[in-house]
């Protein structure tokens, strides 16, 4: 029978329409649900809500409420710390965005020797401990023991224990975030539109501004938000490369540590509250942007 059974090449198939598994309601499902909710409640939800609560509550003999919270946040040391954090984050994000978009274009649109090695190395910063990042920068740029110490000494340029070091540390830890978002989008949209633009006489610069950038716009924005969130919250690497003293290299995260260490918990919780709000804001922006990205095409 069945001599005409098709050969291996017989099966062109249409895309399978997937059907999700419907939830079955059994005692096990209920147990799992309860376990998960309790786990997340005790590990994340309750502690985070307590921080918010404490930012407003009277702590350590100091009054609570919005007024005192505002006072703690407008304290000159706190203002300095947040200003420094924003400055450092701004420059780190700007650098990462320019570098990230550029390197993504090079990696996706060009072929050159060492391309694969570069694309593997690009992800490296995410898997290095923040302390090690700090250590690495100190071992390279410290005037006393860094590899480039002598050069820096003669030029009088200070990196470690100074704002450039903070920017470098922050840029290091958030480096792959823009690239990770942009590369998949660049690969997905393909080269057709760019080729078409060039065939219509656009030069490289015009093609980039008028065609490429609008196509990857949302991925860049998404990467920028992620980078900014990471940059604002960076602590470990910053701690190593900065003096971290009041009005002298003390970023918002270092402020929290210093104030908590000095038993000034109210100030620590106040600053933490701001960072929690920023983190949640970033989460919200990211969730709003996700659908945008899929509508792209």
């Amino acid at each position: 029978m069945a001599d005409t059974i098709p050969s291996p090449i017989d099966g062109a198939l249409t895309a399978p329409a997937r059907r999700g598994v419907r939830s079955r309601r059994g005692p096990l499902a209920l147990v799992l649900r309860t376990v998960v909710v309790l786990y997340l409640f005790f590990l994340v939800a309750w502690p985070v809500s307590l921080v918010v609560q404490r930012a407003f509550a009277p702590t350590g003999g100091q009054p609570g409420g919005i007024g005192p919270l505002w006072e703690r946040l407008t304290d000159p040391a706190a203002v300095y710390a947040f200003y420094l954090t924003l400055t450092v984050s701004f420059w780190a994000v700007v650098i990462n965005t320019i570098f990230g978009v550029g390197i993504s274009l090079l990696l996706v649109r060009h072929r050159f020797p060492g391309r694969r090695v570069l694309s593997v190395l690009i992800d490296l910063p995410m898997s290095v401990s923040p302390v090690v990042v700090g250590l690495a920068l100190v071992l390279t740029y410290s005037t006393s023991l860094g590899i480039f110490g002598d050069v820096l000494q003669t030029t009088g340029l200070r990196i470690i224990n100074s704002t450039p070091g903070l920017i470098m540390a922050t840029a290091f830890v958030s480096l792959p975030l823009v690239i990770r978002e942009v590369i998949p989008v660049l690969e997905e949209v393909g080269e057709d539109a760019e080729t078409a633009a060039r065939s219509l006489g656009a030069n490289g610069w015009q093609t980039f501004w008028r065609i490429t950038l609008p196509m990857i716009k949302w991925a860049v924005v998404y990467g920028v938000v992620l980078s900014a969130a990471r940059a604002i919250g960076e602590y470990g690497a910053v701690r190593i490369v900065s003096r971290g003293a009041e009005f002298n290299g003390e970023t918002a995260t270092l402020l929290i540590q210093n104030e908590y260490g000095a038993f000034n918990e109210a100030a620590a919780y106040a600053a933490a509250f701001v960072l929690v709000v920023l983190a949640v804001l970033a989460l919200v922006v990211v969730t709003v942007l996700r659908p945008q990205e899929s509508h792209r095409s």
Partner: protein
Amino acid sequence: MSIEISNVNKYFGDFAALTDIDLTIPTGQLTALLGPSGGGKSTLLRVIAGLEEADSGTVTIEGADATALPVQKRNVGFVFQHYAAFKHLSVRRNIAFGLEIRKRPRAEIDAKVEELLELVHLTAWAERKPAQLSGGQRQRMALARALAIEPSVLLLDEPFGALDAKVRKELRDWLRRLHDEVHVTTVFVTHDQEEALEVADQIVVINEGRIEQVGTPDDLYDRPASEFVLGFLGPVTRLGGDLIRPHDIEISRYEQAATATGPITRWTRVGFEVRLEITPDDVLHPDPVQVALTRTEARALDLHLGDQVWLRPAVGAQTVTT
């Protein structure tokens, strides 16, 4: 009788997927559940398999009440439209799965799997992973996997729906021949009337959760019980007060006793077939009448676009009066 379904109802929320289904599926035959998508045929198949629980009614398989049995205990073979291959297992292990679950001795499993590989012509692909097979091969593997447990009934849910036209036709013939050899009671769901007419011993037409008609392919085609069945099994046109198949209309260029008359207003050639539209100028025919004939017939009758023609039902033509 192999499968008895009585008084089955199934709701998804407010939507009545199945309404008062009573059906007997004969042993050893190939039965098709035919109907438009969303009509309830897949739900019925899943109720038989135990993948879906009916809200009311009973399902009896080979004389035993299976209504309360979970799918694991029903001993049915089920084949899915998209193969449902176990991707991490080789073809051989896929086929052996059900037997391993039943803890059969290794030697018995090996022998059975070998036999099935032979039956579905996959011996050479036994050690491959499903991802390395074509769609048609995957579906044959899925069939072998379902047959391995020696099911009391074999259920196939749009088994060829994901394959391209040519493979679909080949697998369809192959299934028919396989069934002639294995003789397991088989129920398959399809929305393709040609597939049902060609393969099935018995066809159950299902629409909007109800059974429209049960019968042999010839019964259904020649004696449709309703306008829906007539329309679903092939093209239909309106001639006079009746619904009739376009190729059951006799057409003539010469005046004769006729149900309708009018000019040929449209001429479409599809391979050997010529499809005409005739637009009679009377109140009985608000829409043009469709007529189908072979190219040879059209040539013999010397028909041309714009010719005035006379139409009447051919002798022995099946019509449904509405």
